[in-house]
Structures are given as structure tokens and as C-alpha cells.
């Protein structure tokens, strides 16, 4: 049975394709993403409050490493195979090294819809994977220069809206703990799937608008936007199983590695690496990889995880 949140995405996509005047006002899009990010952060934080942080440290270390490694691997591929200039390769690599919170939420919904178990602390990984790829991306684009405006750059990285909301939510959930947040649950937790549905409606509208850029940038991007996520998902699932996650948990980690950022990274790259063409990375991450993961990727990654689990 098809999850209705997916239907909202398809609905938005079609409405935009047929040039309907349907629009979600920017202020509402902001509200939706604020709610999603805080809630995911809080869910992670609540789990941290339940188990000793130290016990999660090894997993967190591995996940951080993934975030540093992916862009290092992807960037040369993009330069060699894709013939992209240095800054563009670095920027696209950073997008794919980081994660898409929307994709994560859809993966969690998939788990719950199909009653698949997963580790409750997975949202912590989302927070961990946001940032490393941005740092690597900037270094790849600029090299390590003496006169680098690190103040400005680290501000962009750590104080961008997406990262701040995730970390803020994490901290609130951690400090308040499972009981503390009871009274704010109706807004942040009970409405979560509905909010996600509206968010995906808007993502559908935006995604369809990216398509027009596709023809300008050839079909390398299409291939890249589909093949790379699958390969990264396999890697992510493998690492997840290796570090002891359940099949569900490994699937979600695979989905995270397969997903590409379209909130935190674009903003940071636009400021820190101005000469990278933002249309390239957004077309790939939002126009191809996001719909691919959400519509067909996640179930495939789950099958892969089951197979690899053996």
C-alpha cells in the first residue's frame, strides 16, 4: 500500500508539472521545515537521554567519518567522469556527503508503515552527518589557504538555520528527556506525519521546477543522481550492519548516505564557494536524487539490507 505522504509528493509534482498556480507561501514552508527539524532533533535528543552517551560514541565516530569520506571520494569522480570544474565537483560532492532531512523522515515513515524495527537514536546520525561534508567541500573547492575567512565559513556551517534547529532540538530533547516533552508532543510529535505530508507537497512543487534545468546540464547528472545514491546506500547499509544496527537501522543509515542535502549545504556553498554553480548541485540533489530515494530507493535499500544481513 502506497504511503499517503508519497502521494502528497506526487501530487505536488504533478500540480507543478501542469503549471497549476498552487503555491505554499514561503512563510509556511519555513514553518514546516522548522517543525520537522526541531522534531527530528528532539527525537534524537530524547534517545540520548535514555542511554549513556558514551555507549553511542563509537557509532557516532563512524558516522562522522562517513561524512568526511564521501565527498573525498565523490569529488574526483565528478572531476574525472563528469568533467566538472573544481568548485562544482567539490560543491556537488558536499551535497551528497551531507544528508536530506526530508528523505530521512520518509525513511522513518516507511519503517513504521511496514512495522520494521529500527534504533531510536538514528536521528542523532542526521545531526552528525549534516556538517562534515560541508567542511570537506569547502576545503576541496578552495584548498587550504592562508587567508581563508574561517570565521565567516564556520558561521555558515554551524549557525545555518538547518544545523541550528537540529542541534537545538537535540539539546532540548536531551535535557528535557522523555517525560519532559510530554506536553509539547501534540504539536511536535502527533502532527509530525501530517506536517511531513505538507512538506513533501511543497517538495513536489519545487522538484518539478528543477526539471527544466536538466536539459541544460546533460544526462550525466541523471545518471550520477541515481547510480551514486544506490552505491552509497549499499556502503551505508554495510557499515550500518557492521556496526551492529538492525536491518531497519542499517536501511535508514543507507538512506542517509544515499540522500543529498538541499537545505544546509546549498546555503553554505553559495556563500563560501560563490563560483560553484548552484543549479548543478540542486538539480542533481533535488531534481533527481530526492525523488528517486523517496519513490523507489528506500524499499530497494531495505531489500539490500535484508540480503546483506543474510
Amino acid at each position, binding site marked *: 500500500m502506497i504511503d499517503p505522504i508519497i502521494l502528497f509528493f506526487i501530487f505536488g509534482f504533478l500540480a507543478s508539472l501542469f503549471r497549476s498556480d498552487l*503555491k*505554499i507561501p*514561503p512563510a509556511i*514552508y519555513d514553518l514546516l521545515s522548522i517543525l520537522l527539524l526541531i522534531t527530528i532533533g528532539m527525537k534524537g535528543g530524547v534517545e540520548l537521554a535514555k542511554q549513556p552517551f558514551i555507549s553511542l560514541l563509537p557509532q557516532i565516530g563512524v558516522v562522522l567519518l562517513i561524512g568526511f569520506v564521501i565527498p573525498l571520494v565523490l569529488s574526483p569522480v565528478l572531476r574525472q567522469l563528469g568533467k566538472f570544474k573544481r568548485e562544482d565537483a567539490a560543491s556537488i560532492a558536499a551535497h551528497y556527503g551531507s544528508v536530506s532531512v526530508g528523505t530521512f523522515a520518509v525513511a522513518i515513515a516507511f519503517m513504521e508503515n511496514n512495522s520494521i524495527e529500527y534504533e531510536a537514536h538514528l536521528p542523532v546520525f542526521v545531526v552528525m552527518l549534516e556538517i562534515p561534508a560541508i567542511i570537506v567541500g569547502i576545503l576541496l573547492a578552495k584548498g587550504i589557504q592562508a587567508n581563508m575567512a574561517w570565521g565567516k565559513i564556520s558561521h555558515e556551517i554551524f549557525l545555518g538555520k538547518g544545523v541550528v534547529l537540529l542541534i537545538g532540538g537535540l539539546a532540548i530533547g536531551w535535557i528535557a528527556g522523555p517525560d519532559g516533552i510530554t506536553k509539547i508532543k501534540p504539536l511536535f510529535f502527533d502532527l509530525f506525519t501530517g506536517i511531513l505530508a505538507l512538506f513533501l507537497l*511543497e517538495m513536489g*512543487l*519545487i522538484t518539478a*521546477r528543477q526539471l527544466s*534545468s536538466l536539459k541544460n546540464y546533460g544526462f550525466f547528472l541523471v545518471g550520477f543522481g541515481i547510480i551514486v545514491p544506490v552505491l552509497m546506500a549499499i556502503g551505508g547499509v554495510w557499515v550500518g550492519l557492521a556496526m551492529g544496527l538492525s536491518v531497519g537501522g542499517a536501511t535508514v543509515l543507507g538512506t542517509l548516505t544515499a540522500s543529498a542535502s*538541499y537545505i544546509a549545504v*546549498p*546555503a553554505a556553498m*553559495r*556563500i563560501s564557494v*560563490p*563560483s560553484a554553480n*548552484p*543549479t548543478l548541485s*540542486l538539480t542533481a540533489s533535488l531534481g533527481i536524487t530526492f525523488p528517486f530515494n523517496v519513490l523507489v530507493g528506500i524499499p530497494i535499500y531495505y531489500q539490500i539490507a535484508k540480503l546483506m544481513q543474510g
Partner: protein
Amino acid sequence: MSTEKELITIITEAVLETELCKKIEQLGATGYTVIDVRGKGHTGNRGGDWKESANIQIEVVCNAHLAEVITHTLETNYFDDYAMIVYRSPVTVLRSDKF
């Protein structure tokens, strides 16, 4: 003190707001005004549905010399990499000592 000033209008990517406003102040402007807008230009459709595709319009009233400096700075630093247009027009201000 002359009441004839220049109005600089900058239309560019929303992501630049903080940076540009800071720079405009540093260059010596006494103030600025920012409006959320959307539009289309050489870099394509910027419909403003979400932050990545949103535009802002920055308006600065200042004297002719500062106008030169500001437009020159924009031209040198941002024109190549960002969606941006800039134009100037003469205006008559009230209380010219404010600018």
C-alpha cells in the same frame, strides 16, 4: 548641504542579505532598506518559493561619491558569481543631513 542624493537599487539572491548589508554599512552608508522580491533574469527563474530561489531588493540612499564606491564594490565582488542587477537614480531627500 545638497538634498540631491542617489538611490541605488540592488536586486540579488536572498542568501547574500547579511553579507551585503554589512558591507554597505562598512562602506559608509547611513542605512539601507530590504524587500523580499521574486523575479527572472539571465540566471533564470527565481520564484522565491524557498530560500534558495528567493531574491531581495536592497535600496540605499547616499551621496554620489558613495554610490560610486558601492556600485563598484558590487561589480568587482559579486557580479560574476551571483544573480544580480544594480541601478541608480537621482532622488531628492528630506533632511539631507540624515544621509
